[in-house]
């Protein structure tokens, strides 16, 4: 051939590329070569096609795009000669993948080559088909491959068998066509054919139960014989690896036996002897032997083995576990995970070794061991295991801490019988690895604390102590801040002290210090700070002497760049300063958070984070959970009137009262107390208009109708405030909602009320009504109370307004019937 410079030789190109010192140089060389190749392609030059494709493949391996060469593969495959076909098929497998449509064009060439007289060309076609075919190609060419399974040449036979595996994976319906031919492959002597045949049978079993039954019936005997022959065979240099004849065949046969013996006592019994022989006879000083033993143990665990055989398997496992080779230990941990389901007692015996593996220096081993430990936890050993794991948490690597924390938290949650123990463990985990604790975990802790009134004092004191030592763990800070806010007086007054607690004096000022630190700390994020502000508000009510100090702290954030914090700062300041008489009812003790609802919701939501529920709260403009104190509303724009019942001579009601609350902190639902009003029928039922986004819409909160106050034993009237829309929240979503016209709900000579409506996107069951009150007189109104009641069926509302004008009480009432249709 006359090597005119239409291109360099492959070798020279590779040399040139390797000589490049910088990426830019390399790009230049590659660009030049690609240009030459493109030119040759467009000229349809046949001479250098072979070499050009080889160059393209090299360039492809470097990471450059080479799709312009795809058709060259096809042309080479269509050529007559063996070298062209060889490189053509190789290029096809490298440059294309099964999802490309160009691949379909090869189907014809493949068909011809599968029928070629040259056995090596048939081999090329089978190889390409087996590596890269798509489902359609598989369907088209399956008959050819089936036919080739019957040829005499073992090279073609084994390739056809493996090609069939791919066909079955792509088109499982065809599995039954291959059942017969596959089982006859097992009668061959050639090891390559046997290995391929056994693998084909294994895949057939996975693809079709009919095939599984067929093979179980017809092949179990043959399989046992193959294994016995190869296990007993004398030294065969061609197949020998580390003194064992063809370990690969051993392993494949063992795996197929597992599939056939699973769930079938007869075949399992048939396999018993040979399994015992392999388990005892195989040398385990080399990897090949260990690989066989590994597969053997897996098979024994997988079939209906006798107890003697199981004991044998567990012994091998024990030996593996104490092997010094890391690979063997890894594999042992793997096996133990399967063994747990079969014989949990035996595995428990190895618990100490497994715990050691959790502390291993190898990350892969640690991971396996941790998963295994999780499977081993039961009620008797949970306390000691948890203690070990938490001790290790202290010293473990950063990357491992996340996994370890998550596992400890799930163990603690799943197995905790005593709430005290749960609180203790969680305190420790939060102190050691609070930053790795997921949101739903510490939410669950709070729910639990709220449900354990006798442990609340203990909890808040433990958290306080923990905070003093590890206040950089975010989740710990959040839980502590919330608890101090809620149970501050228990902390300071040493309420509910348990016997084992050390005495501790915490002053009100100390408690405020803690929250202040949390607020000001540089590493606290918005959620923590928001929670701290709320906690401070609570403390200003629980510890009146600190009120002024708290107010000053709160005011420091009035100019905060975060809108949420800014707003809270200003509003809380306003409450502390100007509304001292409602403050205590605003921040009174939260009702018991409904554990079962929380758990149910958590199980339901796929994210298992409460941030998913945030959209249903009207106040979320910040990141993760924002906790509002009970009863705090965002005041409407104008006029600034207090819509809560201000006759707070009512004592804080018990948690099971019929008090209505604005927000369920954990989900935006209203908590439905179990108490019905003693009024019974005839009483208007007040629906919580603020359960926006509650998935179970008709959770009616029964509140005694304040209007019919003649009912003597009706509990203190607490009225739901008029629904208020968070202006911050409403703004972005307003455009997307269907718009309803606002109505004049009430108009008299002295007062006008207009309602405007929006719906939250994605939740058309609930409507948010914004009520605007206008004073039509020239005097000021004070102590304004607005009450509203709705019947269940009709869309109407009865309203009642009571206020003071010039020191005189005034009462106005009305009925609203003009709600927009289709609301």
């Amino acid at each position, binding site marked *: *051939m006359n090597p005119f410079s239409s291109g360099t030789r492959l*070798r020279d190109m*590779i040399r040139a590329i*390797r000589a490049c010192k910088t990426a830019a140089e390399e790009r230049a060389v590659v660009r030049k070569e690609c240009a030459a190749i493109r030119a040759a392609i467009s000229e349809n030059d046949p001479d250098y096609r072979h070499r050009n494709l*080889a160059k393209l*493949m090299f360039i492809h*391996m*470097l*990471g450059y*795009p080479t799709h312009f060469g795809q058709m060259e593969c096809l042309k080479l495959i269509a050529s007559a000669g*063996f*070298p062209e076909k*060889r*490189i053509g098929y*190789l290029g096809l*497998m*490298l440059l294309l*993948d099964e*999802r490309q449509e160009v691949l379909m064009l090869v189907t014809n060439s493949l068909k011809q080559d599968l029928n070629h007289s040259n056995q*090596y060309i048939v081999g090329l076609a*089978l*190889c390409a088909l*087996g*590596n890269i075919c798509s489902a359609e190609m598989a369907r088209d060419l399956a008959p050819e491959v089936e036919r080739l399974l019957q040829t005499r040449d073992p*090279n073609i036979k084994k*390739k056809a068998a*493996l*090609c069939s*595996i*791919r066909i079955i*994976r792509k088109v499982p319906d065809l599995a039954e066509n291959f059942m017969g031919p596959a089982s006859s492959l097992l009668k061959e002597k050639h*090891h*390559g054919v046997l*290995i391929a045949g056994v*693998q084909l049978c294994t895949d057939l079993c996975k693809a079709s139960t009919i095939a599984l039954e067929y093979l179980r019936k017809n092949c179990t005997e043959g399989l046992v014989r193959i294994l016995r022959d190869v296990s007993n065979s004398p030294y065969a240099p*061609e*197949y020998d*690896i580390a003194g064992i004849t*063809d370990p*690969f*065949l051993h*392993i*494949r046969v063992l*795996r197929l036996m597992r599939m056939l013996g699973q769930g079938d006592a007869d075949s399992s019994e048939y396999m018993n002897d040979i399994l015992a022989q392999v388990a005892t006879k195989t040398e385990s000083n080399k*990897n*090949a032997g*260990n*690989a066989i033993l*590994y597969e053997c143990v*897996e098979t024994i665990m997988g079939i209906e083995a006798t107890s003697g055989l199981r004991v044998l398997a567990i012994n091998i496992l024990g030996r593996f576990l104490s092997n010094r080779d*890391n*690979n063997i*230990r*890894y*594999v042992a941990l*793997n096996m133990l995970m399967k063994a747990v389901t079969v014989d949990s007692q035996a595995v428990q015996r190895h618990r100490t070794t497994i715990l050691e593996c959790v502390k291993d220096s*190898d*990350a*892969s*081993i640690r991971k396996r061991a941790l998963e295994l430990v999780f499977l081993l936890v039961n009620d008797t050993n949970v306390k000691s295991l948890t203690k070990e794991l938490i001790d290790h948490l202290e010293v473990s690597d950063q990357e491992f801490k996340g996994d370890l924390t998550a596992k400890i938290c799930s163990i603690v949650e799943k197995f905790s019988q005593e709430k005290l123990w749960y609180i203790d463990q969680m305190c420790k985990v939060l102190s050691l690895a609070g930053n790795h604790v997921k949101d739903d975990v510490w939410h669950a802790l709070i729910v639990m604390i709220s449900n354990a009134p006798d442990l609340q004092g203990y909890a808040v004191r433990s958290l306080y102590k923990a905070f003093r030592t590890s206040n950089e763990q975010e989740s710990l800070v959040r839980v502590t801040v919330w608890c101090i806010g809620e149970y501050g007086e228990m902390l300071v007054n040493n309420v509910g002290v348990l016997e084992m607690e050390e005495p501790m004096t915490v002053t009100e000022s100390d408690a405020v210090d803690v929250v202040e630190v949390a607020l000001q700390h540089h590493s606290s994020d918005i959620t923590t700070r928001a929670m701290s502000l709320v906690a401070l508000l609570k403390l200003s009510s629980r510890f009146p002497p600190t009120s002024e100090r708290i107010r000053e702290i709160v005011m420091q954030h009035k100019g905060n760049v975060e809108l949420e914090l800014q707003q809270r700062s200003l509003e809380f300041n306003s409450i502390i300063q100007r509304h001292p008489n409602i403050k205590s009812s605003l921040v009174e003790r939260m009702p018991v958070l409904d554990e079962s609802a929380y758990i149910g919701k958590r199980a339901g939501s796929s994210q298992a984070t409460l941030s998913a529920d945030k959209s249903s709260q009207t106040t979320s403009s910040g990141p993760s959970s924002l906790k509002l104190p009970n009863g705090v509303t965002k005041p409407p724009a104008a006029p600034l009137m207090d819509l809560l019942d201000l006759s707070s001579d009512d004592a804080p009601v018990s948690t099971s009262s019929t008090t209505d609350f604005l927000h369920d902190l954990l989900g935006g639902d209203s908590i439905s107390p179990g108490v019905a009003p003693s009024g019974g029928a005839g009483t208007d039922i007040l629906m919580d208009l603020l359960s926006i986004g509650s998935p179970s819409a008709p959770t009616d909160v029964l509140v005694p109708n304040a209007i019919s106050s003649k009912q003597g034993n009706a509990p203190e009237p607490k009225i739901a405030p008029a629904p208020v829309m968070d202006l911050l929240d409403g703004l972005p979503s307003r455009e997307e909602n269907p718009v309803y016209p606002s109505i004049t709900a009430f108009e008299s000579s002295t007062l006008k009320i207009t309602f405007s409506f929006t719906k939250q996107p994605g939740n058309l069951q609930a409507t948010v009504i914004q009520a605007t009150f206008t004073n039509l007189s020239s005097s000021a109104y004070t102590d304004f109370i607005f009450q509203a009641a709705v019947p269940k069926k009709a869309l109407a509302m009865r309203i009642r307004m009571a206020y003071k004008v010039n020191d005189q009480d005034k009462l106005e009432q009305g009925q609203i019937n003009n709600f927009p249709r289709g609301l």
Partner: protein
Amino acid sequence: MIHFVILISRQGKVRLTKWYSPYSQKERTKVIRELSGLILTRAPKLCNFVEWKGYKVVYRRYASLYFCMGIDADDNELEILEIIHHFVEILDRYFGSVCELDLIFNFHKAYYILDEILIAGELQESSKKTVARLIAAQDSLVETAQEQANSISNMIAQATK
């Protein structure tokens, strides 16, 4: 099954990749990048298995090259180590004390050898002798074809002088 075979050098250069499951070009580069980061940084004494995205990757270092195979979670890792060694020994026999340079300049031959050992992500032949024989037969086919082509073009060149 084996989902992919990747050979990377100590510096992270790719010497051979074979994909037995559908991966687009983008996905392939991503896999290579992530696995290089994961495997090249592992200390020598650790076990040869890493868990990655639901797969297990078995790797072994031979001189300056890492041989990596990605397998299903329920495959036999120790066997894959043997398959890797099987491949390396056959390469060694073919090239005569194989080194990385051999695989760079003769990458297509390395691929041909791999295609005689694995198809569809499963083992094809456990006898090194048989693999060597098949490769030799195909190599000689190629040589004969080239000789024929040479002699024909010589004749044409002579005739057209």
